């Protein structure tokens, strides 16, 4: 393997580096393109908790969309982010009040597997979340696929090992 690496001349190394950059930029383009198409800053999320079991388990992959023209409906499963909190939450809307004058939506959410609604998760004395807190509504579901990212988050070394191996492969792989 390393012999092969040594045999590469400067032009070939430059070409391989460009190839890696190509792969990275296309991945970024696809991600940002999806974000534009779905109007959601994070169109694909991985379920981290069991609060929506048995519908969604830890490690399942969710596809989101957040069309601006469509208001949130009761029963929609929303991914929302409380201000100044790191981790977004995936829960179902159980109450909804649309203000007539401003069109502002007041939402209350609850996890299917939780006994109580989410007022305990919101900020103190916060009774509702609004549409600007909603990152997206769940449209598509794929089981297990997100387990890879959960493993990489739980064991960060795995991430570097995988990145290293992948990088080495791309570098020495020749058509």
């Amino acid at each position, binding site marked *: 393997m390393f012999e092969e690496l040594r045999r590469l001349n400067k032009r070939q190394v430059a070409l391989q580096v460009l190839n890696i950059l190509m792969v990275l930029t296309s991945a970024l383009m696809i991600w940002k393109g999806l974000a534009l198409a779905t109007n959601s800053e994070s169109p694909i999320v991985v379920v981290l908790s069991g609060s929506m079991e*048995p*519908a*969604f388990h830890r490690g399942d992959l969710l596809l989101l969309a957040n069309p601006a023209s469509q*208001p949130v*409906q*009761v*029963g929609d*499963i929303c991914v929302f982010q409380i201000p100044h909190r790191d981790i977004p939450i995936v829960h*179902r809307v*159980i*109450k*909804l*009040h*649309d*203000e*007539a*004058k401003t069109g502002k939506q*007041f939402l209350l959410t609850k996890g*299917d597997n939780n006994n*109580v*609604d989410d*007022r305990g998760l919101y900020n103190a004395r916060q009774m509702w979340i609004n549409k600007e807190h909603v990152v997206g509504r*769940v*449209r*598509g*579901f*794929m*089981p297990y696929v997100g387990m890879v990212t959960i493993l990489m988050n739980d064991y960060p070394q795995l991430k570097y090992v995988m990145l290293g191996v992948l990088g080495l*492969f791309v570098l020495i792989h020749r058509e």
Partner: protein
Amino acid sequence: MHNLQQRLSATFSFAVSALFTVLGVVAAISWVTGYGTAATKVNVRDIRVIQSRYGPDYFDYGRKTSEFGMLKFDIDADLTPLFNWNTKQVFVTVVAEYETKTHNKNQVVVWDKIIRDKDSAKINLRKVSNKYALIDFSQKWRNQVANLSVHWDVTPHVGILQNGRGDTSSVKFTFPKFESSGGR
């Protein structure tokens, strides 16, 4: 020419693309064929209004005069048509909908249930009480007219989530004005 590493990598990438193609086809089929509709019916037995500071969820609504609807209703639903080879679960809710002057659309879930198989998809319940607090944004009920209906949300094993509602099932009812029982 072809070493083990190249063979492994080719096999792996082909397996992954084959798997995702199959998943895509499954999702597409279920999206096109849909899940049909369920036969649902609700019937309102009784509606009362009480005043309390705490709701059935023990949440502190801040004032002793917050008004809660106490609803009793019957549900008859046959959700078996929603179950096919790509149905993981059906989430059924009974929703109260109404309009007020300040809020043109209000939807409050009063009851819900997770159904995971065809055998438990027939629901016949009598005199069910509302599971969640039936309280307006203003925390007052002033002879409010509302609609009760059954909604469902199908989660597939893989693919697009689809929802629906029983249009024929909706039934009108009116929240009475609160009248304190202690006559002065």
